[in-house]
């Protein structure tokens, strides 16, 4: 039972990280209709920028994540302007190639600045909590709580604020939204910026329990794509449910069946979903 509780919390923490990363990706898909293959690289860059502000500049942990998130928002906007916007009328393959190019560019940039060595980011949040006999590190509790708060704020932003509503409007009907005076260009920039910002929060939270390296985004990239396909491309609730479901499935499979299967479970679930319900669990996304 202790093991179960332990793994449940580990799964929830992992789910929080997956969610934050997946939501950005699904937003970008909803608005720009492109799979942003550079998402993992933005996550990696977010981790390094957080590391830079925390270790090199010396600002406190939470502030470092905040500043890095703003920096990455700008990077996301830049990515939209310089890469995706010029390609808006090209075939879809061009976006994907450009995104892969951007991914390699960011990885090479990180290696040039910070080197290829792994780096460790220390967190001021230390200590363990005992919950029903299981030892849960405080950092993991922080991850879970922050993820929930950020997701709530995001939902509030999209449902209640004008800017957020424009995102949803564009997702639902690009032409219709333009007709009522919403500028799709602005919304595209806002969305990519927001997705990079969310990825940075995820990266900043998970970095202290893992390591920084220029390729740290690769594994996450695959998983978040599995999550948003599982949840339904472009669907916010889909990304949230998918993120937590996949993370818990992963930890529990690794615990009770086998470690090797735990890594593969994301893709087994993905194949099953594609076979049974190809549009994903939440098929809100407008398919055109």
């Amino acid at each position, binding site marked *: 039972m202790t*093991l179960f509780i*332990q*793994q449940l919390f*580990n*799964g929830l*923490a*992992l789910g929080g*990280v997956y969610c934050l990363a997946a939501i950005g990706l699904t937003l970008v898909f909803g608005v720009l209709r492109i799979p942003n293959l550079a998402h993992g690289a933005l996550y990696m860059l977010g981790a390094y920028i957080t590391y830079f502000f925390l270790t090199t500049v010396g600002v406190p942990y939470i502030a470092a994540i905040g500043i890095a998130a703003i920096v990455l928002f700008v990077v996301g906007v830049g990515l939209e302007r310089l890469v995706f916007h010029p390609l808006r009328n090209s075939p879809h393959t061009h976006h994907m190639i450009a995104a892969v190019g951007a991914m390699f560019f960011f*990885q*090479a940039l990180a*290696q040039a600045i910070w*080197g*290829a*060595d*792994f780096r*460790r980011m220390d967190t001021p949040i230390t200590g*363990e909590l005992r919950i029903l006999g299981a*030892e849960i*590190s405080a950092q*993991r509790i922080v991850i879970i709580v922050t993820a929930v708060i950020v997701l709530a704020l995001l939902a509030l932003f999209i449902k209640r604020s004008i800017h957020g509503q424009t995102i949803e409007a564009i997702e639902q009907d690009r032409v219709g939204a333009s007709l009522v005076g919403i500028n799709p260009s602005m919304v595209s920039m806002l969305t990519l910026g927001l997705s990079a910002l969310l990825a940075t929060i995820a990266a900043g939270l*998970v970095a202290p*329990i*893992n*390591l920084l*390296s*220029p*390729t740290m985004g*690769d*594994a*996450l990239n695959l998983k978040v794509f599995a999550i948003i396909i599982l949840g339904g491309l472009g669907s916010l609730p889909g990304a949230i449910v998918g993120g937590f479901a996949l993370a818990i499935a*992963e*930890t529990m499979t*690794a*615990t009770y069946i*086998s*470690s*090797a299967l*735990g*890594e593969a479970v994301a893709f087994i679930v993905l194949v099953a979903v594609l076979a049974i319900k190809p549009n994903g669990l939440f098929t809100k996304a407008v398919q055109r």
Partner: protein
Amino acid sequence: MNSVSRSRRRRLSAAAIMGAIALTATACGGGGGSGEGDTVVIGYTGPLSGGGAAYGENVKIGLEMAIDDLNADGVEVDGNPVTLELKSLDDKYAPSTAASNAQRLADQDKAPVVVSPNAGAIKAIQQINSGRSNFLISAYTSDPAIVQAGNPLTMMIPPNFESYAEEFSETAMEHGGKKLALLGTQSEYGQQWTKSITDAWSEAGGKIGGDNSVDYATVSDFAGPVSKALSEKPDAIFVGGPSQPTALIMEEARKQGFEGSFLVMDQAKLDEMATVTKLDNLKNSVGVLPVSEYEDPGTEDFLKKFAEKAGEKKVPTSETALNYQGIAIIAKAMETAGTTDDPEKIREAISEALPEVDDKYKVNGFPDEITEQGHLLNPNLEATFLNEDGKYTKVPIEQVSDDK
């Protein structure tokens, strides 16, 4: 419309011209080697970008340091001064790319020696190094399969990893107990180690829990796999992959209350691990001896030069030190053989050259013989046990045969 296509055409022709210039430049640079004092290219293909980049860089630093020192000392082959030059190509850890890189280094740059630090890549290069093109592979891998292949032009540098299993098991059992949990990485090499340790542990009369190997490169949070391994209440845990993630796993295990011993695979270096976690978390572990703990004649100077080159913070590892030795051996073999372009003669001369190598190049357990199959053997191989006081105590290792 017209103007667009014209400017595009102009851009295309500009690109074509640049391309042509670039080609000419490489063609000129490629030949080299005539005039006073020959230049000999030492080829290197390794991962310089992507997930293995840190490893590839460590090897490269060792090669650069050796070549700088050798050139400063002066290499003389058959009465002529020779300048060594390193040419590195990135293979991103892909064997097929490594093989084409090696081919390129041998054909274009006339490299008599190509260094490769990865078993898969070496196996691919062994398909092409003694036939149409001839070159010696300076092989940095502890997988004995590469000498079992019977390739006449391979020099294997590190000790066979299978040598460690028995001594590691005994030491860990002595300081921990009889029950082992497996938590190594899922790479091919990691799995070979896991098997080797599994065999040695059962032979020594220990019990082994389920295989909890995880891919160190893709797991976002090690807490899950660690909790699972600890649920079996082991006395010792086998860990290992790259140093830094291995350190995190050990830290997590200690946090979750594990007090037994660790067996650390040779890919992870205890001193390098201490840069990402507290030494306290690493105590009671058996692993390979850190470079800085060697007492060879050249070790101290090597450490100083390394710190100058790579910075005080960076920990020198055997990837750097053993490749430093390797190039010194090859240079001496060239001098002994009296040739820089006949790899067969160079390979033959290695055993004669070994005792001739200057003491300054003996930094990390220097070999005194090379086996028929091409494996350099260090007569006093040692591993280490990091004890409760945080001191490295030496553990002598008896080397096993490379035969299957």
